[in-house]
């Protein structure tokens, strides 16, 4: 089992995440988008990268978290941290319920079922416009700030908030991955038939991992709601599920930093390219995907670590 201690490079990485405050203050709102997306990708990594469960409907939990946080802010109170907890619980319940169905399937049926549940939730939110605002999204609430800091127009508080939540969740994910439970998940990914033979309850493990991933995705959605004070139907869309999958694969699935690195590259590239010609942005992301699958089967981080091993 690899060493669970923080390495120097990791300290350096997290120190670098503070740089945008001084170096690129104009891009802080992009920074908080990246942090939220990175957290979402990290949650997918728990089930896809470590447990080997493919999901094309992970936005369902992101959306449940986002709508839960939005509904609380609109109808009850606007304090974000307690809203975050409620959103996490809501997403967790959704994940726990769905996990009982999802973990039993494999291959095309699994892909279609996760996609189907995602689409179902999207349609349900679209139809229940009294509750969710339908296609216009949930509006009419304002989250003033967090822990006494106001959300300013430069996005300083928003970035700090998103970054802090990402970091805390990252520590939790790291703890999970390095625990015996995390090892069991990797065992299921590598050989689902052999694990029960050594007494590991496969389905129970997968259900647990699925629920944890749902909680984390819900937290990411709730942070998005708090920092933007609106919830759009897009949070539940198939496009978001596909995007996060692309991001995770790009960075490298099954690696703690895969989702974070993927989110940084994807979001910055999209911000730059789509400004020029949004309809052609898809060409480059498609080419990138094809190249990653063909030449970098473990994503960018996997390619880098292979390079490092070779040079040593």
């Amino acid at each position, binding site marked *: 089992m690899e060493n669970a201690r923080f390495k120097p490079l990791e300290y350096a990485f997290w120190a670098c995440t503070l740089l945008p405050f001084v170096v690129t203050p104009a891009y802080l709102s992009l920074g908080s988008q990246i942090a939220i997306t990175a957290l979402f990708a990290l949650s997918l990594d728990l089930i896809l990268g470590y447990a080997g469960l493919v999901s094309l409907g992970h936005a369902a939990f992101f959306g449940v978290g986002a709508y839960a946080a939005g509904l609380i802010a609109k109808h009850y109170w606007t304090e974000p941290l307690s809203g975050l907890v409620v959103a996490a619980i809501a997403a967790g319940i959704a994940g726990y319920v769905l996990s009982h169905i999802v973990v039993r399937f494999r291959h*095309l049926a699994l892909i279609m*079922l996760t996609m189907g549940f995602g689409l179902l939730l999207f349609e349900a939110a679209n139809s229940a416009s009294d509750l969710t605002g339908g296609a216009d999204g949930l509006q009419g609430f304002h989250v003033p700030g967090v822990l006494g800091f106001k959300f300013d127009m430069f996005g300083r508080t928003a970035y700090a908030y998103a970054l802090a939540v990402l970091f805390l969740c990252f520590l939790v994910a790291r703890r999970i991955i390095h625990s015996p439970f995390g090892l069991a998940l990797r065992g299921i990914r590598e050989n689902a038939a052999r694990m029960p033979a050594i007494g590991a309850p496969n389905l129970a493990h997968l259900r647990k991992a699925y629920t944890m991933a749902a909680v984390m995705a819900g937290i990411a959605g709730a942070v998005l709601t708090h920092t933007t004070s609106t919830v759009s139907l897009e949070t539940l869309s198939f496009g978001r599920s596909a995007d996060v999958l692309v991001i995770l*694969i790009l960075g490298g699935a099954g690696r703690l930093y895969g989702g974070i690195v993927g989110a940084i590259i994807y979001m910055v590239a999209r911000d730059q390219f789509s400004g020029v010609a949004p309809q052609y942005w898809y060409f480059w992301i498609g080419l990138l995907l094809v190249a990653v*699958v063909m030449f970098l089967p473990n994503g960018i981080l996997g390619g880098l670590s292979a390079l490092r091993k070779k040079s040593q």
Partner: protein
Amino acid sequence: MLSSLAGVLFDGFAYGMLLFLLAVGLSVTLGMMNFVNLAHCSFAAVGGYCTVTVVNRLGWNFLVALPIAFVVGALIAVVLERALFRRLYRSSDLDQCLFTIGIAFMSIATFAWFYSTEPQSARIPSYLLGSFELLGRKFAVYRLFLMLMGLAITALLVLSIERTRFGAQVRAAVDNQRMARGLGIDVDRAFMITFALGGGLAALGGALAIEVIGLESTLPLSVILVYVLIVVAVGGLGSIRGSFVAAIVLGITDTAGKYYFPWLGAFLIYLVMVALLMWRPMGLFGKR
């Protein structure tokens, strides 16, 4: 409500035939090689744009454009299969999904580059437009045309799969690829031809679909792809009969849902799909 039932069944059946054309190639190739090709609807878009070019720029007849669309779609499918897809037959589902999503993304941008993102249309000969009356109800001529085309192609497909030597090879490869190889069947060649036929049929479907669902550059990853996947997953991999039944049921359910319960949107379709897959993960007619 009952009086509209005939119209709904008629339109739904025509729509189902369209979905069948779009999906049948994917179903058979998935059954043979377990290759999850999410770029399948790119072939439909190829057929659509090919028809638009032939009809609007060259001024040829729509009926001439259809076989051209089929041939172009099949050729592009062969090239892609030989150059790219064949490397991925042993990869994981996830890699195949991502790779083909990447191809679909690139095709979307390419169509947008050449044809802009505006919806396109192709001129249809006047004798295919309008409607005819039967028992006091009006039916669209084009939908009847769709239905006849679909039925003719289905009959041709079933005959060639059930009666020809090539069809026997395909069936053997779907049932047990390794055993078929062991018996000396050239599965790779059979697969290539099947893939080409599937791509061609999807292109033909895309060409026929312009008049029904329109043609935009985002077609490869639109809701049509979801419907095609539903047809494949519910019908069962590699089963032409299953795809046919699933496509007709889906077409009629979708049309009826839009007519009678418009507020439900596509909710009903997804609900039926999820329930069916939970009940039979291998599809209605799937074997594995």
